[in-house]
């Protein structure tokens, strides 16, 4: 099964193609603020380099985020509308899960961390890789690094971009052995995880697919806070 994976949650367009366990393509395009401009053209060039037409794709994997709100909207909209227009199944993959998957050789606790982009706030998840499956431990985390360190009670691998300083902070606070793994969102990892889900018949409702924001918009948070008080 040929699966196209994409993730635009960071400052890059990650596009990958897998066929079963084989990675046919895994590209990362620097996209700063022009994810929208680039993404479909980048998908086209990756498919062409692999000698494939969009019709050859059997399923689509989409990195849901968290990350840049604009970025995940672009990725999710492109992913679901490509799936809709080609009548192929889609599987949404949390970007955390794909990041953790890139460290699957480790038997340690895996902790992908994504910057919120304001202060030292981060999005994080805790995962184990067991029996060839990524398993999430507990809920996703949104908050400062200090709060995250309280959740980490064993040695771990922290995964993400500009990760070494965060790894040091977590190691200092927890006294545990913390290995930093510098990783950007990965299209092939999204495709691999999507292929596993699609093979199990666990596709998502194409039209219903939405990003994993993990944070409400500032306006909504403000209104909710105000509504609770009054």
């Amino acid at each position, binding site marked *: 099964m040929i699966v196209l994976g994409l993730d635009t949650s960071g400052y890059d367009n990650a596009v990958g193609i897998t066929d079963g366990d084989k990675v046919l393509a895994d590209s990362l395009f620097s996209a700063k603020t022009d994810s929208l401009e680039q*993404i479909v053209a980048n998908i086209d060039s990756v498919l062409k380099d692999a000698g494939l037409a969009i019709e050859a794709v059997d399923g689509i994997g989409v990195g849901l985020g968290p990350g840049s709100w604009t970025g995940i909207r672009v990725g999710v909209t492109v992913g679901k*509308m490509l799936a809709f227009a080609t009548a192929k199944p889609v599987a949404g993959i949390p970007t955390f899960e794909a990041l953790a998957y890139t460290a699957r050789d480790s038997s340690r606790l895996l902790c992908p961390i994504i910057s919120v982009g304001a202060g030292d706030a981060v999005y994080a998840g805790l995962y184990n890789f067991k029996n060839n499956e990524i398993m999430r431990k507990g809920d996703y985390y949104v908050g400062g690094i200090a709060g995250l360190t309280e959740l980490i009670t064993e040695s771990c691998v922290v995964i993400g971009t500009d990760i070494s300083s965060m790894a040091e902070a977590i190691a200092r606070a927890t006294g545990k052995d913390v290995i930093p793994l510098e990783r950007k969102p990965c299209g092939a990892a999204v495709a691999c995880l999507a292929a596993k889900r699609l093979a199990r018949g666990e596709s998502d409702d194409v039209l219903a697919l939405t990003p994993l924001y993990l944070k409400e918009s500032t306006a909504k948070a403000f*209104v909710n806070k105000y509504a609770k008080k009054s």
Partner: protein
Amino acid sequence: MLVLGIETSCDETAAALVEDGRLVLSNIIATQFDLLKKYGGVVPEIAARRHTELIGYIVKESLDRANKTLDDVEAVAVSSKQGLIGCLMVGVAAAKSISYARHIPLIGLHHVEGHIFANRLSHPELPFPHVCLTVSGGHTMLLYVKDGSTYELLGTTLDDAAGEAFDKVAKFLGLLYADRNTGGGRIIDELSREGNRKAFSFPRPMFRRKELDFSFSGLKTAVINKFKGPLARGEKLPLPDIAASFQEAVVDVLVAKTMRAAAEKRVNSVSVTGGVSANSRLREVFTETCQEKGIEVFFPDLSLCTDNAAMIAAAGYARIMRGETSDLRLNVFPNAPLGG
């Protein structure tokens, strides 16, 4: 040629199928009035999230309602210029994905160009050249429309759009929170029918100025300043009279400037489009005034006044017929000028 239109520039998620730029087969619009009421205005991030949730369903519905599938669609047109950046992006991402997956042409265009074409959908006989007043919650523009592709901007609002003033005055008067699924313009229009248009004398901004630009912020502030004291003291306000007097001031300015533009450009046809063109008093005064002056005035069907994708499909069709298309790198330009 069957064109799928997509429109997400503000707070309407819309998709439509239009045959040959003329025949509307479906025109699906999901409004976000519930959010407008909750937050008292359009919050860009919240609107963009809603577009992302809805876009697939709306496109599917536009196909189902027209009894068509994507196999029948020959081109995709999308609003890519003017609007809220995060909102425009959702429509453009959807449009380019469909274009790429189906190997059909893509055309991105200016949202206001869509409004100009809304009237061509309702009135194929609308002649060129004409003067077009396009007026909504997001823009207020006077245009000289030479043909289907060239426009000269004669005037624009220097501050609030006319529809924005309607919304803000309605919000100030506490009318938006009524249990109604509609924006401020329609509420004021309906309320005004029971009111006295001459009860209060509000300013007609820029009325006597020769320029064809508009300004509605001062008028809005005049209404607010006059009644904020009584409102704070809990006095019962003569809402229909306030609504009717405010509406009359807006209508007077819009009609007068449009007539001046028609005279300057020596045209005998005037086209009024955009959400505010649904206003019944605006239609009434335009019709009377134009009749006196021997000018023909055109309004779109009510379903084509507010933001919709049928007008985008029609405008896109015209561009495609002129040999224009956009490539897969189509981007959004929230503040793009009209034309080009």
